[in-house]
């Protein structure tokens, strides 16, 4: 008897799966996810797990924006359905949920998939299956490769662009100081540091420290920076670790100028970590970068606040809210430009002819040769508990091109924030 079960298991597994699949067997249609009055898109994002705290509000904001658009007639008569799947920031789960989106929910496109390690695990799959992979929520330069990944478009300004702009601002504002960096021990930290070195030079950083997200302690790193006499510290950290770094430095009575990537420089989120009482003190003078409208008196921000109150249950308004709604706006714009009967190809064409404006403070860079969204950022600073642009805006590329001041105007709000063809 002992030999019975040799490879029966595999067959049984097939049988079990076949049974489960009877109801869901499907063949792809011409333009999946589009009906006469709806268009379905999906995303993968962390709603549970350690990364959820910083990012789960993004997909909720995008959904709120789509609800707002749908209540006002949709885009070309179609309402936008947004399917949000939790991947817990785990690449293995991302694999599963993205396949569910594409094969079971038959989404038109994957929108704003979040995270470098997570999205890296599905970018080949999406391009293999020619599914539009729009506005990836990560600053990795990986998404801007039209040759390798023709269906993938980035959203965030790349970490390299951000770092080059911040380093240029630091050199102009605090010349001759000792510069250091604390970075996450993955592509985020590495790419950001690459950008810094491009501007500051190979010996421009007195100390390069790294941390791992799974170790909730940066005393050793901050101590090393203090010992190295660092005066201007760049941060390639997620929001939780920006707060941790600043809090640790304060405990060690270590005063420095902090300059953070936009991924970890969202003031309202940092206040959530540090507490209402000490945050304005610890974050006074805190410099970061941004490419989306964020001034308290901005017309986009006013509109997004209204949508947030009406369609998002008045959730706390943060940089994530603006980010999520801006992504929604950009997708709506792409859809509006893609014609009355949008197909996957027509959306791609709309993006590549450069028909989109977005709502950033610098123009979008989408073209046939560039799948990067923002090749420039503005500098923000915190003063008296208010984070706002200080006026400096830089544009540059992801390579070793020059960093150029940008003098154009931000994209203005038109027609209640609902794009038209």
């Amino acid at each position, binding site marked *: *008897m002992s030999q*019975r079960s*040799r*490879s029966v298991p*595999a067959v049984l597994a097939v049988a079990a799966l076949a049974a489960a699949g009877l109801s869901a067997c499907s063949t792809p249609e011409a333009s999946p996810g589009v009906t006469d009055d709806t268009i379905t898109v999906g995303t993968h994002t962390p709603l549970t797990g350690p990364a959820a705290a910083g990012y789960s509000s993004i997909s909720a904001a995008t959904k709120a924006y789509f609800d707002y658009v749908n209540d006002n007639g949709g885009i070309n008569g179609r309402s936008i359905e947004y399917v949000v799947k939790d991947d817990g920031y785990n690449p293995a789960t991302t694999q599963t949920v993205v*396949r569910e989106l594409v094969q079971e929910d038959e989404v038109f496109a994957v929108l704003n998939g979040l995270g470098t390690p997570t999205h890296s*695990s599905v970018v080949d799959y999406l391009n293999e299956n020619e599914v539009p992979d729009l506005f990836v929520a990560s600053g990795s330069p990986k998404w801007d490769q039209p040759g390798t990944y023709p269906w993938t478009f980035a959203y965030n300004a790349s970490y390299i662009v951000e770092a080059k702009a911040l380093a240029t601002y630091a050199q102009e504002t605090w010349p001759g100081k000792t510069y250091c960096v604390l970075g996450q021990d*993955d592509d985020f930290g590495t790419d950001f540091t690459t950008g810094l070195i491009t501007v500051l030079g190979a010996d421009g950083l007195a100390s390069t420290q790294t941390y791992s997200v799974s170790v909730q302690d940066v005393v050793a790193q901050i101590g090393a920076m203090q010992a190295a006499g660092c005066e201007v510290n760049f941060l390639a950290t997620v929001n939780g670790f920006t707060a941790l770094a600043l809090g640790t430095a304060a405990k060690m009575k270590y005063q420095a100028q902090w300059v953070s990537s936009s991924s970890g420089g969202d003031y309202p989120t940092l206040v959530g970590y540090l507490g209402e009482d000490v945050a304005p003190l610890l974050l006074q003078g805190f410099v970061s970068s941004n490419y989306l409208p964020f001034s308290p008196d901005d017309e986009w921000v006013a509109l997004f606040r209204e949508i947030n109150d009406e369609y998002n249950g008045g959730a706390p308004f943060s940089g994530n809210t603006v980010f999520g709604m801006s992504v929604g706006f950009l997708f709506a714009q792409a859809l509006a430009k893609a014609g009355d009967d949008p197909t996957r190809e027509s959306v791609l064409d709309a993006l590549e002819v450069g028909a989109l404006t977005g709502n950033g403070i610098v123009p979008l860079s989408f073209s046939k040769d560039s799948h990067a969204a923002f090749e420039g950022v503005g500098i923000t600073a915190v003063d008296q508990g208010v984070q706002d642009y200080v006026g400096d805006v830089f544009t540059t590329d992801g390579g070793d091109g020059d960093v150029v001041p940008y003098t154009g105007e931000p994209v203005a709000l038109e027609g209640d924030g609902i794009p038209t063809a």
Partner: protein
Amino acid sequence: MNRRQRLPGQRPLVRTLALAAGWTAVALLGTFALDPFRNYQLALVAAYLCATAGLTVLVGATGQLSLGHAALMAVGGYGYALTSNALPFEGAARFVVALLAGAAASAVVGLLLGLAAARLSGPYLAGLTLAVVVALPAVASTWSTVLHGDQGVQTDFEGVPDALRRIIALEQWQAMVAVVVAAVVVTGLALLRGGRFGLRMQAVRDDEVAARLSGIPAGRVKVLAFAASSVAAGLGGAVLCFVAQAVSPGAYTLGFSLLLVVAVVIGGLGSILGAALGSAVIVLLPWLIGRLTAGLPTDAAQRLDGNLAVLVFGLLLITVMALAPQGLHGALASRRRRRPPDTPRQIDEPAPQKVLVPTEEQR
């Protein structure tokens, strides 16, 4: 192997292999009947089966409980990924070499763990293996220049070979590869357990002192059994890395490691068929629950997402233990046989307190 040397209950090697090849062919043909998502799930089941089959043989045949098989899968996955990235050539050769490297890496780690495991038993062994899983993220971040910390290692995309590209979809190709690897692992484990080494494992499990008195090197048997089980898990991890193109500590959490044990227990401890059933359960259940909760309001669905599955697994485990202590396979087998309770067979059954001993039916 000649007839006189054959052990009680053992089948001829040729017949075993023929049977294995036959069933594998059936499974491969079965992939044509499935849509891409089902094939993807089949690939996951096959990858998990490698690990659960190894685990069930280890627990069932030697009585060593490992809570750390997820870590051993991760070792196989990292071995596969690092080798695959380092190799200068592509295609099938790269896959095979990387797979073997993954197996070798998990064999080495399994051997080291086994050396410690052979000196421990019961909760102490469970504790040791548990510690290995818990340590995985720290290991990945300590050697982050090689293992890339929490982000993990990404591998190149292995598409469908050009010759088959027209008839086979990506998911189907991945499922076929996974099925073949799982078939090799399961056949290997079945041969191992059905042969001389299997008898030794059982002898050591039932009474270590008696086994030693009979001249069986108990320590060596336990270490080798652990290493063999580790190789099976490592191959599972390598296949998973082939499918996911990435290996990271986040994919091999403590929760996942315990889920492997749950799969083995639900399927029936010691039964490879049970391991297959259990693997299918741990792949399909979270997905089914996701489908069921999809109709709920967004807020409620988001609250339940990821949490409800854990609850259902707990309930399922309790239900299976209460109604069918020998797992799904045990329940199926006893229903099929309907053996009267007073046949001599039952008297031969092991004493009830030896919960880790599989019955003849289970095997």
